[in-house]
């Protein structure tokens, strides 16, 4: 009885995996098509990173089971994201300092 229940539950999971697979495929095509749009560099970067982030969220949430994962894992990842952004943006701020007007920070992109 329990085995049957587990199998039925996994079948539901498999359906979700296949839907995520479809979504990732569509988003890959959207990423390529978006690169043909006439956009400024900063707009193109923003759009590409938004699409990539959505794809990454799907992989993290469903394939890596983060949506049902324990809080300890979530905390480890939040800490990682925090330090990741420090690593990315701290040198960037230093560069802006050398570049001139801090209010024009986005121009360095």
């Amino acid at each position: 009885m329990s085995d049957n229940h587990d199998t039925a539950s996994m079948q539901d999971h498999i359906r979700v995996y296949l839907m995520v697979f479809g979504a990732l495929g569509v988003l890959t095509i959207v990423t390529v098509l978006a690169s043909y749009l006439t956009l400024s560099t900063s707009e193109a970067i923003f759009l590409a990173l938004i699409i990539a982030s959505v794809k990454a969220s799907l992989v993290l949430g469903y394939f890596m089971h983060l949506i049902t994962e324990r809080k300890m894992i979530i905390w480890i990842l939040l800490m990682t994201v925090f330090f990741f952004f420090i690593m990315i943006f701290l040198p960037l701020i230093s560069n802006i300092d050398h570049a001139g007007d801090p209010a024009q920070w986005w121009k360095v992109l």
Partner: protein
Amino acid sequence: MEIPYVVEEREDTGLINSKLGIWIFLASEVMLFGGLFSAYIFLRMAALPGDFERWASELSVPMATVNTVVLISSSVSMVMAWASLKMKDFSKYKMYLGITIFCSFVFLTIKYFEYSGKFAHDIYPSSNTFMAIYFTLTGLHVLHIIGGVVVMLYFYLPISHKMWNQQPEQFTNRIEVFGLYWHFVDLVWIFLFPVLYLL
């Protein structure tokens, strides 16, 4: 000596040790690739206007798009391999793991043609800044793929059947933990693809 908490969860963490271990490892991997992405941003900011775009246009978008689909497919087949073990279907597990291994070889083959195409045109990591960071980022990613293939081949060998028969739950957890690594490799490519090929 028996390794503790590989099947039952620890009371304090609520996790099996191997899962906690792989997530901490993946956190360190985020910082490794993050450092190189940070380097990419700096090199691009310091480059002459249009320089990165011009060299990026030398890369093959169709090849990279196919590789993206191949890697996403391998991620799905990996999670399906784990799901098959959860449903106690070892033969399906072998089939899906075989598909994952096949996809990783397709990825590496396409990457080989991409690299050899560049070398044939005398384009090397030393040619310019864009190619330096391109080869560094994709080369490190390829090394991760090769590492994953080695582990997958081990789990595909006949010994896997013995492991499954002796400790099915532990074996299922090992595949889940390896799957987390493999999905991470896919995640890195999801960001590498637009950053290097499309922007």
